[in-house]
């Protein structure tokens, strides 16, 4: 049984963003406080910021188009950045897009800071850009992300359908860092969420120190590909 030591925790309000370097050997648990959260996250190797989360490699290497417990989040350099060690939701969306200032204004109307202060409408791209800018990155570095807590189903014709009610109050997902990973977190709604009102949901963040993955670790052993991905991450630290 893995042991965990709480480092710190905080609440991230709806429409807000946060950047944290999740050190190797620590984990981030995200809890959907009210149900219906959407948490776009993108990841970088903090020591080599041109190495970043790659959606295509993550999906191909694990033969999946959705993410849940046991899956790993791969960089474009064949290494595991983080693995999903706990998940009560069952389906997180890796292929949906994120919102932009223009898409938010079109869908919900403009809502500026002058009038609404911190209740103004933000967007995932603006929040991502502001956070990565603090690390010297720019729009060139924004490529793909995961919409945690959201479910997007693809039918046989290829059409994408947002599935409401995927995440309930109290549901959580836990990311264990296998490298020193820059994690960029946002809480804006999924762009395909049919809710006509801008109602971003708050989440609770809990950062913990955790044991190194054991030989029988679920994420490492999910498939032969993940065993090799873990080897690549481990060799990076030798």
């Amino acid at each position, binding site marked *: 049984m893995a042991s965990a030591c709480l480092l710190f925790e905080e609440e991230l309000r709806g429409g807000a963003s946060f950047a944290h370097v999740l050190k190797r050997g620590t984990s981030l648990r995200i809890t959907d406080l009210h149900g219906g959260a959407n948490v776009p996250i993108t990841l970088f190797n903090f020591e080599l910021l*041109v190495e970043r989360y*790659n*959606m*295509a*490699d993550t*999906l*191909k*290497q694990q*033969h*999946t*188009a*959705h993410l849940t417990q046991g899956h790993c989040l*791969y960089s*474009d*350099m*064949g*290494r595991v950045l983080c693995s999903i060690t706990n998940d009560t939701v069952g*389906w997180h969306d890796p*292929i*949906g*897009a*994120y919102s*932009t200032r*223009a*898409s938010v204004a079109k869908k919900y109307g403009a809502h500026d800071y002058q009038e609404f202060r911190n209740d103004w409408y933000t967007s995932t791209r603006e929040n991502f850009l502001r956070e990565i800018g603090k690390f010297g990155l*720019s*729009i*060139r*570095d*924004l*490529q*793909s992300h995961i919409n945690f807590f959201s479910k997007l*189903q*693809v*039918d*046989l*014709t*290829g*059409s*994408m359908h947002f599935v409401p009610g995927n995440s309930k109050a109290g549901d959580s997902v836990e990311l264990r860092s296998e490298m020193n990973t820059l994690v960029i977190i946002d809480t804006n709604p999924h*762009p*395909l969420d049919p809710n006509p009102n801008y109602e971003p949901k708050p989440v609770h963040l809990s950062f913990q120190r955790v044991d190194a993955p054991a030989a029988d670790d679920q994420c490492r052993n999910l498939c032969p*590909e993940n065993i*090799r*991905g873990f*080897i*690549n991450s481990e060799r990076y630290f030798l």
Partner: protein
Amino acid sequence: MSERTLIKSKLDAATAIHDEVLPAGEGWIHAVKKGETFRIVDLDGNQAADTLIYNLHDFSERYSALDTINSQGNIYLTTGSSLVSNLGNELMRITADTCGRHDTLGGACAAESNQVRYAIEKRYMHNCRASFMAALMSWGHEKRDITSNINFFMNVPVTPEGKLTFEDGISEAGKYVEMVATMDVAVVISNCPQLNNPCNAYNPTPVRLLIWGAHVS
């Protein structure tokens, strides 16, 4: 299986202003100006043409798979698909397609992803991201600029259960896809050298690339 509408082009290869054959495993970078039409022909069948697209005048604006599939609500590309940039602008639009479905979620092979997918010792094998790097660096760009790509002629279905599958190709010798540039763009192609995946029967083959000037019908 989705119904695929196959649309033929009226353009005659004899009137193209650019016409070349790109051997398997080669990279290519070329400007396609606003209004010009670009065609990729799968000469021998089931060859993946891994393609990146940029705003010719500002490479920070580039093709985005997520913006493209989000804007059309569908993960496959075919006639009528707008190829959308990371800033939400249309770069190119597919105007003819005799294959009927193209992938944009499967990404491009790399030395490191070959290690993970096939075996640690596969790192030496030539791969698409190496071809992308060489093509981009020849124009002064760098790894940061490698982003999501289209796999023309590849069939990578997603199932309602959320699985990603690699199916037999639906392309064959002579099938082509054609697109018109709606802004000045740079097109980068890695004609995939993949020798580990049965999708091309372990036999990468050439593609033919043609460009017609604006106002040609």
